[in-house]
């Protein structure tokens, strides 16, 4: 087996074919030999037939002559002599033919004897003729007697001559039959052995090849999945080489993976270190900046000469610019580490746009840029963090002013884009951007004009605007015509139209100090399950939700009651306190999650806990809780969450109603 494995596939293939080829050669050889024997047997038979025929002619000559002479002797009629004369003339030629026909020594000696006997016969017949002519009766009788004896002798000789070849033909036939039988046996054995050997070879070869190909394929797949390879029998053929290559590749891969992992760890550590550094440094920078800005503001208030007042104003401007940069650095670091907190709310676009344009007008005017905005009569609102959206717009506007041509225009406009999105566009009349430049504007710290140095900036404004938009489930779109200007469009989720009939409830107003959200037409109540043992906390949320139409609140004071209530009320949101009297909060969470999955609901579960340690928050987030609210509950935040969930539910419900109108009422049990 080992010997076989070490042969190359070509050798194995040849060996596998050798047995049937050998069998074929033997069978062919045997059949050729039989054919040759048959041919020679046929020639022998032909020759024997010729000898027999010629000898018969000679015998006939002799017999004719004998008969003719005996007739003449009896009748004394010379007419009877004619056949004798003809035979005497013919016989010598016939005897020559007979001699020529003899092919073996035996035949030749027999033929020679026959020739002598024929000679004797004709001599005796001459003697009878002369005795008849001489009327010698005794001699005639004697000669007739001799002729009879000679004739019998000749007949016997010719008969024996004719017998020999036919015996030989028979012997030849027997020999051919034997040969044929032998050849047949050889053929059968050869074909059987050849086929078996061939099959065995093919089985050995194909079996071995396919098993080893499978093993190699398995190992290749394992290599792809980074699993350890299966051991392969060592061999020196093509498969051995393949296995060896796989092992080498595996080693290489393991090395590379280790290197990669180390590099990634380093990168993570480095990023963390960078962000920590940025964050710490930024905070440290604020302390001196506080003094700078503070004194500058005091100076501005003081009674100063115009020059000095201008100096103070410049210090203030520069200081505020520096502060802005620091803030952007912190934001960038927070986005990178996932620490950015957003407070998403309903934002009136019209108000925001007017506000931002008012703020930016002095800067635009100072650069000779005309800043205009289109007033939209429709009241539109987006779901966004108002401060962050404002930051994004200021960022886009200040870029549009900075990168505009002198005397150019910046236009701020907004519109609803379908039922779900709101677009706010900032268009400038600057140099515009090429497609490649558009790719680059969102890469942090990669300023398009960094080498020119004509315009101040760090190159993080646009990337930050994009990151903030994405954090608010929005995006930024850029269109540009090189030479005639660019348009940056922020697309954000819409918050729905303001419903003038929605009167804010007093309770909510007092609790939140703001209006209740626009009520959504909803026949299916939004169910909230609050699992909490502290009665005061429960009471707060009861008050909070009581002024909110379309929301049903169920409360449970223990974990078990909460789990029981879950399947009964099928809530759209679960608020879970982690410190419950009967069960650990983690367990309640896991059981609720399992219950939710078994009911094929994807109920959001939000933890509400006084435990604000990062460890606790991290643990629960890892387990998959949808959010972690620390006590005291930020009711505004909770309101945003509930509003977002309700909108989502309303959308899926209406989508389901469109596709499947006679939908079973899931909450009909209650």
């Amino acid at each position, binding site marked *: 087996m080992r010997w076989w494995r070490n042969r190359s596939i070509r050798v194995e293939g040849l060996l596998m074919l050798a047995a049937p080829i050998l069998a074929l050669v033997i069978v062919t050889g045997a059949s050729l030999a039989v054919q040759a024997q048959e041919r020679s047997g046929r020639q022998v038979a032909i020759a024997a037939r010729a000898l027999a025929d010629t000898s018969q002619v000679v015998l006939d000559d002799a017999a004719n002559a004998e008969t003719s002479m005996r007739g003449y002797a009896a009748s004394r009629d010379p007419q009877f002599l004619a056949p004798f004369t003809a035979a005497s003339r013919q016989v010598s030629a016939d005897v020559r033919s007979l001699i020529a026909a003899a092919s073996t020594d035996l035949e030749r000696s027999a033929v020679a004897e026959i020739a002598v006997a024929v000679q004797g016969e004709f001599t005796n017949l001459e003697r009878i003729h002369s005795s008849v002519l001489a009327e010698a009766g005794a001699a005639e009788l004697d000669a007739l007697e001799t002729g009879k004896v000679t004739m019998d002798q000749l007949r016997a000789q010719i008969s024996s001559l004719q017998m020999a070849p036919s015996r030989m033909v028979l012997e030849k036939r027997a020999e051919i039959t034997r040969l044929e039988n032998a050849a047949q046996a050889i053929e059968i054995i050869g074909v059987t052995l050849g086929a078996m050997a061939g099959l065995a070879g093919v089985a050995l070869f194909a079996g071995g090849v396919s098993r080893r190909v499978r093993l190699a394929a398995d190992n290749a797949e394992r290599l792809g999945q980074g699993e350890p390879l299966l051991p392969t029998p060592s061999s020196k053929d093509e498969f051995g080489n393949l296995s060896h290559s796989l092992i080498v590749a595996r080693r290489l891969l393991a090395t590379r993976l280790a290197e990669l992992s180390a590099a990634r760890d380093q990168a993570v550590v480095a990023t963390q270190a960078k962000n920590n550094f940025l964050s710490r440094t930024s905070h440290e920078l604020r302390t001196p900046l506080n003094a700078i800005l503070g004194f500058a503001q005091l100076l501005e208030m003081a009674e100063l000469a115009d020059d000095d007042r201008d100096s103070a104003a410049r210090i203030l401007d520069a200081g505020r610019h520096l502060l802005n940069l620091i803030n952007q650095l912190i934001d960038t670091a927070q986005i990178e580490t996932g620490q950015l*907190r957003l407070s998403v709310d309903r934002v009136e676009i019209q108000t925001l746009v007017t506000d931002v344009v008012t703020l930016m007008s002095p800067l635009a005017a100072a650069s000779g840029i005309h800043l205009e905005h289109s007033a939209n009569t429709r009241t539109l609102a987006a779901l966004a963090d108002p401060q962050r959206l404002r930051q994004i717009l200021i960022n886009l506007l200040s870029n549009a002013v900075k990168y505009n041509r002198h005397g150019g225009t910046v236009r701020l406009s907004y519109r609803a884009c379908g039922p779900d999105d709101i677009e706010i566009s900032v268009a400038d009349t600057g140099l515009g951007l090429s497609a490649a430049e558009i790719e680059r504007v969102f890469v942090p710290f990669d300023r398009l004009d960094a080498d020119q140095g004509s315009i101040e900036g760090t190159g993080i404004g646009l990337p930050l605007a994009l990151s903030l938009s994405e954090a608010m489930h929005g995006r930024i779109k850029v269109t540009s015509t090189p030479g005639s200007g660019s348009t940056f469009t922020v697309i954000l989720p819409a918050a729905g139209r303001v419903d003038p009939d929605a009167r804010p409830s007093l309770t909510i107003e007092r609790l939140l100090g703001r209006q209740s959200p626009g009520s959504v037409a909803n026949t299916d109540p939004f169910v909230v399950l609050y699992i909490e043992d502290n009665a005061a906390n429960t009471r707060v949320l009861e008050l909070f939700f009581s002024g909110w139409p379309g929301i049903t609140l169920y409360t449970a004071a223990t974990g078990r009651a909460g789990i029981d209530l879950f399947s009964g009320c099928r809530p759209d949101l679960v608020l879970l306190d982690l410190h419950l009297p009967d069960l650990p909060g983690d367990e309640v969470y896991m059981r609720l999650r399992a219950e939710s999955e078994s009911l094929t609901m994807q109920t959001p579960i939000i933890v509400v806990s006084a435990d604000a340690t990062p460890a606790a928050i991290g643990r629960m987030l890892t387990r998959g809780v949808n959010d972690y609210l620390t006590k005291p509950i930020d009711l505004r935040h909770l309101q945003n969450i509930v509003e977002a969930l309700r909108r989502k539910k309303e959308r899926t419900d209406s989508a389901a109603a469109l596709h499947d109108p006679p939908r079973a009422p899931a909450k009909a049990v209650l």
Partner: protein
Amino acid sequence: MLYVEDNADNIHLVRRILRLRPHVELLVATEGDQALATAGESLPSLILLDLRLPGLGGQEVLQRLKSANSTSSIPVVVVSGDSGQTQHCTMLGLGAEQFLTKPFELDEFLAVIDRFCQPREVTFEDR
């Protein structure tokens, strides 16, 4: 008013700003222990607390002020270079009255002073 801050420039700045509100008497503490002691002795109308302090941290100071009977009712306004919302919420949760991000705007600062340090008797206008 008690200003708890270790940076001399900022102390100087606040001192200058308070010239705009002459009715406010400024006490300064440059570290946590000193702040607690001064607060306990003088019972100021307002404590302006910087979070980055040598020794006892600002958060610790806030907690102790709020847990001591004598000082628990004194309004505390936290000043910090950290503009993060998390810290903001934590401080308010610990009983801080308001949160000022450094660097603060003059108007904003004066609004805080005016909210908590009402003049006991109006003697003169500052401007």
